[in-house]
């Protein structure tokens, strides 16, 4: 039996096929609207494309999870309920939800539908996870990227809900689902409209050899000539404080927990998740392949020591570097 399920992102039908072909056990995807947390221009699936995606995955023995993980607007819950109904009708293997009301709706309306708790719910202790299990029958929780491996071990021991953790991709250092940094700068919310740093508020400017990134009119970073760039998110902005410009929250960097696979397995983690529905299919193919090889190698040998693995990941990381993030929390 495989030590982990590998859960992979898809923002387009081609990325979905790339993920399945590269060895994903399950792919997660969203509808083309504000009901999911990657509501970017030209991304995501129509109902027909989602149906095709489910058929493609199912024909190869894989699963498809539908992310409906933003919070419904007050007085306008219909698009979110319709997304849950359509995911159930199309035969999704699970829906990934965050909102309490939507979880209640899904549990009552589609009792056979498997419910996963999105990272957007920010459930970070066993008591919270048990509540979602008892109230709505949630079967799996996607854990926030702020827990250490020891925290995860304790949480797994305190609940019978499956755990899924991010192992590669964008490093969100905030309380996910509750972060309003981007909302202050742009007026649009990652939690309600599904857009952190919406593209229409992002501008890049070349100033000599420097690259300046701006969000909602605020300059949030200036990269010198040759310096690797990062996403235009405020949490990875470089700001002047006490006369010195530095990264106050987090540096431009990507999560990569490859060396921690044995520790995560020992902690009882069920599934490993790769971030990046906004990334191209070349990223999906490269990262999924590397993690597939790592998991299969770990299943055979109990170790993660294939020297070729990092080669497939080096070009994919933000800011040209990666980190084990909070899992090690070496700054403590």
């Amino acid at each position, binding site marked *: 039996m495989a030590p982990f399920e590998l859960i992979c992102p898809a923002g387009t039908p*081609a990325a979905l096929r790339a993920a399945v072909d590269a060895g994903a056990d399950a792919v997660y995807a969203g509808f083309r609207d504000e009901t999911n947390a990657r509501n970017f221009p*030209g991304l995501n699936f129509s109902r027909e494309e989602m149906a095709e995606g489910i058929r493609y995955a199912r024909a190869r023995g894989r699963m498809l999870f539908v992310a409906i993980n933003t919070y419904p607007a007050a007085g306008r819950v219909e698009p979110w309920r319709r997304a849950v109904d359509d995911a159930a009708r199309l035969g999704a293997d699970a829906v990934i939800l965050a909102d309490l009301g939507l979880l209640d709706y899904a549990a009552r309306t589609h009792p056979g539908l498997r419910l996963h708790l999105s990272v957007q719910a920010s459930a970070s202790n066993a008591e919270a996870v048990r509540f979602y299990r008892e109230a709505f029958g949630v079967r799996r929780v996607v854990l926030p990227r702020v827990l250490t491996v020891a925290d995860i071990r304790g949480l797994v021991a305190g609940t019978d809900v499956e755990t899924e953790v991010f192992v590669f991709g964008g490093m969100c250092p905030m309380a996910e689902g509750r972060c309003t940094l981007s909302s202050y700068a742009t007026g649009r919310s990652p939690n309600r409209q599904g857009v952190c740093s919406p593209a229409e508020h992002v*501008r890049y400017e070349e100033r000599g050899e420097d690259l300046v990134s701006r969000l909602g009119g605020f300059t949030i970073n200036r990269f010198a000539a040759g310096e690797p760039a990062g996403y235009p998110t405020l949490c990875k902005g470089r700001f002047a404080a006490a006369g010195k410009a530095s990264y106050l929250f987090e540096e431009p960097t990507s999560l990569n927990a490859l060396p921690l696979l044995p520790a995560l397995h020992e902690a009882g983690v069920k599934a490993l998740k790769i971030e990046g529905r906004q990334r191209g299919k070349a990223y999906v193919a490269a990262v999924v392949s590397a993690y597939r090889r790592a998991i299969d190698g770990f299943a055979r040998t109990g170790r993660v020591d294939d020297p070729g693995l990092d080669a497939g990941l080096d070009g994919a990381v933000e800011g040209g570097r990666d980190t084990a993030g909070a899992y090690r929390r070496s700054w403590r």
Partner: protein
Amino acid sequence: MPPIPPELAVRRIEAAAAGVAVALAGRTAPALSGRVLDLVVGRVARCHPRAFAALAELPPATLRIEPADRPAAFLLDVGPAVRLRVAGPDDPPPDAAVRGPLADLMDLLEGRIDGDALFFRRTLRIEGDTALVLAVRNAFDGEDMDVVADLAGAFGPLARAVPPARRAAGRALVALEEVRAALLRPLADRVAAVERRLAAFDREGR
């Protein structure tokens, strides 16, 4: 140096051929280059209706696509009338622009490389309306696009010849590379020997 994979060798040839085509487009009368580009885009659009439907749904806007290593640039009009044309000196400023090496732009078009990774490395430069750039990138990345095969498809049986021709060309290029390395090896050994002797003279001189 490790040998290059055959498919990469073929890809370099195709990129070089595209470079010649881009340079020619920049020197050709706009009416002629416009007709050729209309034919090319029409063919690719027939092969990828989903991507072109997505471009047609966008608000009218113009994206400048600028191969940094070639003397010509293109303008992609999106909206109800999708069109690709050669950029001229009198065109109004575009809504957005992407700039990068032609080979990378081609890889990006066909989804062989991740646009974010190119941006992180500062290989790809973006200016103007970022939402427009993302929408166009995602429309093409959502396809399994192969422009050479798409264009060859316009000539019927030629489409079937593309995969075996690429395999044969790849094998030939790798064989050529091996011959070249074999011929150069004695020369490289001689140069190394001369360098060793010079270093010895240098030590004695001190």
